[in-house]
């Protein structure tokens, strides 16, 4: 079971640019904007957590309101935890194979049912040495890009031990990237300080 060590989720849907995974424990997803990886037979796929959702297993049955404090709810309705799941959505930002690391999309998406784990600080540092990930995240159209980009930069900075120079470099990359959308650029930069 060594491959279960550090496992935080399992891939249930995968495409070249994104994958979805179900968190190993309900209410314990990776942080929004944090860096995760999927170990597959062909190599490692790296991504940034772009959204988290907790809901009922059965899409036909929605969770209902019980109107009681959390401790009482768990005591009186213990089956509830078995009926809901936490899912997270990940944007692919790069991949690695045989000791190399690439800041572009992998040739194949990860396999379904592969395990997802969090990246180590060393891996995050290697992934974010190039600011290409900012561009990849910025190209998304269906999520609040300014939130995602700023969260990812904050996470990277945290993994790098609170690196101010990195934040300032990243802020410049943001300004450059969004040169046609000054308001968006500034809203990201504001979220970095």
């Amino acid at each position: 079971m060594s491959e279960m060590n550090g496992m935080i989720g399992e891939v249930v849907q995968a495409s070249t640019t994104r994958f979805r995974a179900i968190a190993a424990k309900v209410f314990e997803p990776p942080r929004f904007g944090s860096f995760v990886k999927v170990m597959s037979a062909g190599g490692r796929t790296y991504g940034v957590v772009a959204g988290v959702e907790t809901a009922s297993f059965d899409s036909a049955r929605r969770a209902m309101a019980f109107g009681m404090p959390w401790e009482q709810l768990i005591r009186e309705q213990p089956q509830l935890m078995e009926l809901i799941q936490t899912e997270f959505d990940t944007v692919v930002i790069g991949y690695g194979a045989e000791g190399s690391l690439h800041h572009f999309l992998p040739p194949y998406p990860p396999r379904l049912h592969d395990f997802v784990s969090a990246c180590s600080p060393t891996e995050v540092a290697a992934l974010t040495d190039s600011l290409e990930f900012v561009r990849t995240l910025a190209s998304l159209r269906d999520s609040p890009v300014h939130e995602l980009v700023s969260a990812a930069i904050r996470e990277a900075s945290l993994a790098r031990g609170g690196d101010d120079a990195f934040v300032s470099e990243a802020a410049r990359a943001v300004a450059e990237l969004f040169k046609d959308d000054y308001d968006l650029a500034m809203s990201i930069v504001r979220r970095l300080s």
Partner: protein
Amino acid sequence: MTSGNGQRVAFERKTIAHVIQGSLLEGLVARLADDADVEDLRVGRFVVVEGVRNRFFSSVHDVKLEAANLAVLKAPPPSLDLARTSLAGTQTYVTVELKPKLMLERSENEVHPVKTIPGHFARVAEATDEDVALVFGEPGDTMMRLGSPLEMEAAVCLDLERFVERSNGVFGKTGTGKSFLVRMVLAGLVRSRAAVNLVFDMHNEYGWESYDEETRRSAPSLKQAFDAEVLIFTLDPASSARRKVTPDFEVHVAFRDVEADDLALLGRELNIRDAQIPAMWRLSEVLGADWLLEFLSMAPGDDLNAFADANGLHAGSLAALHRNLSRLRKLPFLKETGTDDSVERIVKALLAGKHVVLEFGRQTSLLAYMLVANILTRKIHGRWQTEKETAVAEGRHNDPPQLTITIEEAHKFLSPETSSQSIFGEIAREMRKYNVGLLVVDQRPSGIDEEVRSQLGTRIIAALDDERDQHAALAGLPDATAMRILLNNLEPKKQVLLAGYALPMPIVIDVDDYYTFFSNVRRQAAGALTGADPWAGRGGGSAPDA
């Protein structure tokens, strides 16, 4: 400098910007490098643009803040450091306007005027001391160190041999240290023997010491540095004595030396109307050489009326002229008989290679200054013409020695109305024909006749506020419009724009400290200081004499 050496130097330079557009006509536009600070880039700074095969020497003419996106300007970023630094170089950037003046092919050692421009993204870098030396020459006997480019230590030299080939101008508003600058240039001329000097010293500054209001000490002058090589002539021996100056000679001017044209020049000072000028011509025609004295000796009333009648002059007008010219009797140096031929003494001294400073003492009225300067210069110029003609006939091509005449308040002599009558206008226009040139010192160059100022070879220009004066100071120089921006940005003191014939390209310099300069010149004159750099620049390490 070998090209290999040049390459090495090239890598050590700090990059300031990269060329992004430009033309030969308009100059270059370069984008400031992200790690360069816009506040370090001062207008007038000397920089080098590195093309593929040529290096272009240039000065910074303007610095501009630009934005890639208008939205940035409409809503400036919040005052977060991060926001501002993130925009710098991405959405906001700085451009630098440059005017290349000279170029140097990598394999050569000689600079040429620019005939092309560097390509896109050519590197703009800090100039090094070697660049300055390459362009402005190394200090030497006739290469006079006057200062250094902004934010540099290297010497910018004035080529004194070329300098004296033309008439030159020193301009600047009051309080810019003009007279200190002129003293430095004169000291350079004396030391290098590039020319003999005649200085009409209106404010008693160029001979012996003068009081420096800024440092509150007495500033030494030419006589202290060069002793017997400089002779002080005075119009006012009493004033000289009070200032403890021992003049070499006292100057007198005889009434018979004053010509009608000399007085015509003084129209405003003597209140002479234009209509009275023909009357003076008539007077000198009828009365001969002693016309002025004879005229002034006539009694107002009958004598004058009779004379007017006899010579077809208007009696009232003649009486007015008589009243006005009577003021000349109050000038103490104007004598009824020539007791001492001052002109002859001055000419002799100059021909012997001595330098003459004529102090006016308390005779500082424009009337006295202009009268004396004009009469003496007319006579000396006449002598120089004779000497030159004799020398040419005898095949002595270096005689008589090159003479530089320094005049202050030059616009009084060289205004559009007077320059055609004044001898100074003639000297400025005839250029070096008779080995005589002017050093025109003025705070109002716009008052100088356009034809004269466009003949000025080299200009040394300190700060000038008036737009017309700025235009006038630069008149006749190529790129005068572009250079006005340099003038506009001069510090009020000790910073000048050098441009013209004696310089390979125009440049703004920080002028060397006067006291250090003078103490070096004095020690050299005394034989105490020897070395490669006879002007021992700022870095020379010699303390000024207390």
